[in-house]
């Protein structure tokens, strides 16, 4: 294994473009090192991007949104003075990844690139409408978070491409988001089902809605009908019923050691209701 610690993204891209065999980007390393230790993946090329300028920064974007550096760890996001207030669901979701120790290392972009369908931060980021900047030999492009994972452990990133920043849209007035997951214990588990909901309200009426589910399909699943079910409602029981039905219909899970198809599908409905209620209360409070 060759270890590189480039000073710029251009340098990192050049190394990744020219590398043979398996290449991994090292930021928090909480997935890469586990895979190495368990003999699942031993990269031929490991590119540590933490020496690149700006990767540890959280900055307010011109549009009022946020740009989060790719080496910013979960704990740094949770401790930020403004971000948790504006995007509580996203920050909670990131904060649920692993233990306190893992929070000191793990990054949301790493969580995204690991491409686990159960990644905690991803449903919340998808619901929030987050994007990433992907930079490669052909220059940078902005990509919606939901378009990065293509299957368990697989992403749409091409050879030589690296994610260089994570972008959250401006929160704006009347917006609220939430994320919850189901796990058997209270901590340290992989989500059996995760659910992120992001709403905007005007008065009591929902005007915008996005929902995404984790661990119910090969990739985190954006439930596109959520807006139809919720916009124009005051989150009455009928709206919650419709949302829960949509969530369950969106499920295409597998039976595995962490949960059965039936159990995951059932939970998707339960969590759609629970999380939507929290997001709704937050949105109403944010007017």
């Amino acid at each position, binding site marked *: 294994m060759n270890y590189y610690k480039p000073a710029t993204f251009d340098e990192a891209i050049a190394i990744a473009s020219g590398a043979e065999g398996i290449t991994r980007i090292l930021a928090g390393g*909480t997935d890469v090192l586990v895979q190495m230790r368990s003999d699942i993946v031993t990269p031929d090329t490991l590119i540590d991007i933490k020496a690149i300028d700006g990767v540890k920064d959280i900055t307010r974007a011109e549009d009022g949104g946020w740009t989060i550096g790719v080496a910013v760890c979960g704990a740094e996001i949770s401790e930020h003075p403004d971000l948790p207030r504006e995007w509580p669901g996203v920050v909670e979701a990131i904060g649920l990844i692993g*233990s306190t120790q*893992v929070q000191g290392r793990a990054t949301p972009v790493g969580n995204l690139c690991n491409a686990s369908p159960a990644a905690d931060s991803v449903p919340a980021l998808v619901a929030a409408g987050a994007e990433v900047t992907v930079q490669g030999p052909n220059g940078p492009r902005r990509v919606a978070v939901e378009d990065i994972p293509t299957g368990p452990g697989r992403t749409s990133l091409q050879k030589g491409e690296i994610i260089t920043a994570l972008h959250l849209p401006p929160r704006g007035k009347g917006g609220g988001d939430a994320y919850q997951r189901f796990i058997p214990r209270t901590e340290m588990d992989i989500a059996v089902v995760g659910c992120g909901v992001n709403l905007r309200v005007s008065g009591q009426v929902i005007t915008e809605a996005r929902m995404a589910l984790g661990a119910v399909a090969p990739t985190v699943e954006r439930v596109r009908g959520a807006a139809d079910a919720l916009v124009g409602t005051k989150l009455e029981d009928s709206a919650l019923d419709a949302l829960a039905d949509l969530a369950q219909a969106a499920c295409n899970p597998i039976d595995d050691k962490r949960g059965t198809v039936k159990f995951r599908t059932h939970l998707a409905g339960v969590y759609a209701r629970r999380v939507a209620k929290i997001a709704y209360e937050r949105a109403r409070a944010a007017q």
Partner: protein
Amino acid sequence: MKKIHVTTKINGDTVEFLCDPRETLLDVLRDRLGLTGAKEGCGTGDCGACSVTVDGRLTCSCLMLGVEAEGHEIGTVEGIADGEELHPLQKKFIEYAALQCGICTPGILVAAKNLLERNPDPTEEEVRYWLAGNLCRCTGYDKIIRAVLDTAAEMREAS
């Protein structure tokens, strides 16, 4: 495989070592530097027995490569006591019998100390969630949580 030279600070002392890039910080601490206080319970970040601080932030040393330590400050259980004077947490852990076999104790002490530095007055729930990544199989956590809460109270009184 060519080894890489790394300079870092451990418990306040500058340390240099050579390591294979595949070696974790835990491997380096234990096998190259003789700091065996951090334990490997799982190697996958699930048990917390290898907990250290990196620039003051709590981390599993099994989830970090040795080469990543370059230029950073590492804190281990060996650096918790002040010379011959035990840290209040260490004293309380003995007093409360907050350990039985003691294998998880170094990691839990590093984690608990880091908590109290950030939050001198944690609730029981905050302590339990902060330490959720530190598995203990012997105690059922009861005496550990009590020891941490009582240390916090005592340190608040003292300051």
